[in-house]
């Protein structure tokens, strides 16, 4: 496996670059950079899914949950703590959670320690019920106390007040923890079951984010999360920046927004580059070969003494952690955590389209898919609107069909994504950049 640089890959990336540069010229550079930044984040998510699917053939449709956990990490790490809430009930909430966790651990230990039989089931049930009641007794009081502290602006425990960049690895860790729990239970069963289990856990994570106000304010959202880059307003007031801008002869407002976006892009490119480098290293290492061997034939890999189940667990955790990091980056980019915006079509299934279209089993393919599909996702809406305007140009202004078609143009993107996925799967099942 020599690593020559394939001209086809270069060409495909060139084409995607033209799409972005074209957006810059036709629409505006601000728009192009906004899409590009989310494209970077999407590319990282696609890398994570590609690890699970391309390396190991694991079908994870809970990407949204891991992304959301990454978003939660930014709140937990960077937001200033709320001391009143902590003194009101913070410790009680923590104590409740510890009690809940102890109940589950205790139940699992008991299950393993006791002999098989009806008694074991009964004891388990009693332990779980008693533990749950105790947990609710302690936990609910704490939660009520915390949530009653100035609910309009806080009403939650806040975070640790640490630098925001620290949230990115923490987001990865949170996602990895969740992945460990799911992997422990659902891996090793048939692939459809893992799919349903991950689909379920993602919905539950979103439900927790929406309802546990003490954690991250629930649907009241956390806004104004710290930024790793300067604010546009500060730039517009800084002498040095204004001097620089006037030298180029640009408008200070536009220049400041573009500068901020470029700084984000630089940070994201750094992370993406590091992740690609690591993924490529892993892919070409003995470990990567072992993973592919397991993926292609589990039985013979197991016969060679490879521990299939724990390798699967390993890669499942790694891939989910990458999605968690991407989720934290995305929330940093938005500077707000809005649990209501997490939709499975956008955050799980779209990432899958990226991986399949780009080329499963190829890191560059996943990255390409990330950029290309994200660009399409954003641009299909205005393009669809243009198309509808063209189609309905002959109709009168108040025509109900025309109004309806124009209103519905936004839904064209789902149709387009489905079409692209099916066409690629049918005519180029290995994706744009196939596995080497």
């Amino acid at each position, binding site marked *: 496996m020599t690593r020559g640089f394939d001209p086809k890959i270069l060409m495909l990336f060139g084409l995607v670059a033209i799409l972005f540069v074209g957006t810059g010229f036709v629409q505006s550079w601000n728009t192009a950079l906004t899409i590009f930044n989310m494209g970077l984040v999407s590319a990282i998510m696609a890398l994570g899914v590609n690890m699970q699917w391309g390396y190991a053939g694991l079908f994870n449709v809970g990407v949204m949950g891991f992304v959301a956990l990454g978003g939660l990490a930014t709140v937990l790490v960077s937001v200033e703590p709320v001391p009143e809430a902590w003194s009101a009930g913070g410790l009680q909430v923590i104590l409740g959670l510890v009690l809940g966790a102890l109940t589950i651990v205790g139940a699992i230990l008991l299950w393993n320690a006791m002999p098989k039989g009806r008694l074991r089931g009964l004891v388990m049930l009693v332990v779980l019920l008693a533990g749950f009641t105790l947990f609710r007794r302690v936990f609910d009081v704490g939660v009520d106390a915390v949530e009653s502290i100035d609910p309009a602006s806080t009403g939650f425990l806040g975070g640790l007040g640490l630098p925001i960049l620290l949230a990115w690895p923490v987001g990865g860790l949170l996602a990895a923890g969740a992945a460990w729990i799911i992997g422990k239970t659902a891996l090793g069963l048939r692939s459809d079951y893992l799919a349903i289990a991950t689909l379920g*856990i993602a919905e539950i994570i979103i439900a927790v984010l929406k309802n546990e106000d003490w954690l991250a304010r629930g649907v009241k959202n956390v806004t104004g999360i710290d930024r790793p880059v300067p604010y546009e307003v500060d730039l517009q007031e800084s002498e040095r920046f204004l001097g620089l801008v006037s030298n180029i002869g640009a408008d200070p407002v536009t220049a400041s927004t573009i500068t901020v976006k470029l700084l984000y892009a630089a940070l994201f490119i750094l992370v993406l580059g590091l992740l690609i480098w690591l993924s490529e290293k892993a892919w070409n290492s003995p470990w990567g070969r072992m993973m592919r061997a397991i993926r292609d034939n589990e039985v013979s890999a197991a016969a060679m003494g490879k521990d299939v189940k724990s390798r699967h667990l390993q890669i499942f955790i790694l891939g989910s952690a990458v999605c968690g990091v991407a989720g934290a980056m995305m929330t940093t980019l938005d500077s707000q955590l809005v649990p209501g915006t997490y939709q499975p079509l956008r955050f799980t*299934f779209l990432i*899958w389209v990226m991986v399949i279209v780009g080329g499963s089993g190829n890191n560059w393919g996943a990255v390409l898919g990330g950029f290309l599909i994200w660009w399409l996702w954003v641009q299909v809406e205005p393009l669809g609107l243009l198309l509808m305007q063209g189609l309905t140009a002959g109709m009168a202004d108040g025509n109900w069909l025309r109004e309806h078609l124009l209103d519905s143009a936004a839904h064209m993107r789902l149709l387009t994504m489905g079409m692209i996925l099916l066409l690629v799967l049918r005519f180029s099942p290995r994706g744009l950049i196939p596995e080497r």
Partner: protein
Amino acid sequence: MDVLNAFVTLANFVIIPATAYGAQLALGALGVTLIYGILRFSNFAHGDTMAFGTMVTIFATWGLQAAGITFGILPTALLALPLGIAATALLVIGTDRTIYRFYRQQKAKPVIFVIASLGVMFIMNGIVRFFIGVDDQRFADGERFIISARTFRDMTGLDEGLAFRTTQGITIVVAMIAVILLFWFLNRTRTGKSMRAFSDNEDLALLSGINPERVVLITWIIVAALATTAGVLYGLDKSFKPFTYFQLLLPIFASAIVGGLGNPLGAILGGFLIAFSEVGVTYAFRKVVGYLGPEEWQPDGLLQLLSTDYKFAVSFGILLIVLLFKPTGIMKGKSV
């Protein structure tokens, strides 16, 4: 101690709603389980198939209402249902011809079918949103109640009312008819038997001259009928919203897996199990316990195990427990 009032409360808030919801889930899960048994993949587009069928039915209902045709005290949607089923059948047969058949001939791995069904899901979702939009639609008409809470109180003289909505009654009756028809078809007719044979052992079925394409065709028609019926009943009982139907995928899959994927009887059992747990775990039992216990036992809390927003967690929890301890489901399905 007031057992009667306690029971009426329980029936009003748990037993009746959960039975109706369970019947809807069971119909949905039957569709999933049939596809799994015959075509051997988990169809992620099932929720959106339900949404599509319901959408066509709603349009037909509006058309009938505009023409002044109603179904008396029953919802007009029941008259429009056959049209919805026919349209959905055409759609799913179309997707099978254009998409799934290719992979069947390639003998592709099941997970490829699943990914293809993701594409179908996107397209159907897009179609539904394109035509009817993303908003809530209510299309139930006719008599609202079989027994309203007030009539019940007047009739029995109890403190608690028992409301039995028409849509709930219809759901239960229609679901029963659908299930009886399905089982009669599967167990008594020649085509149904060939379907079961195909599901049990594909090679043997082919050897005995069963035409696989015909079996697949009939399966899709039945699935379209089940999915549309489930969707319309759910929409009549609650309301129609494309995103809700997409989210129904999780409890439906949970029902099918808990009952044993590929096993129709299991799907029905699973549907009711999931529905009763979802409603039971998220219901506040305070009033019921208050009626049962002496006055001074009246509890302070709501006695609600989980808030209603966590209903997904319930289907998921049951699913996990079953997968951990009995991976083939309660009734033996074909898996692992």
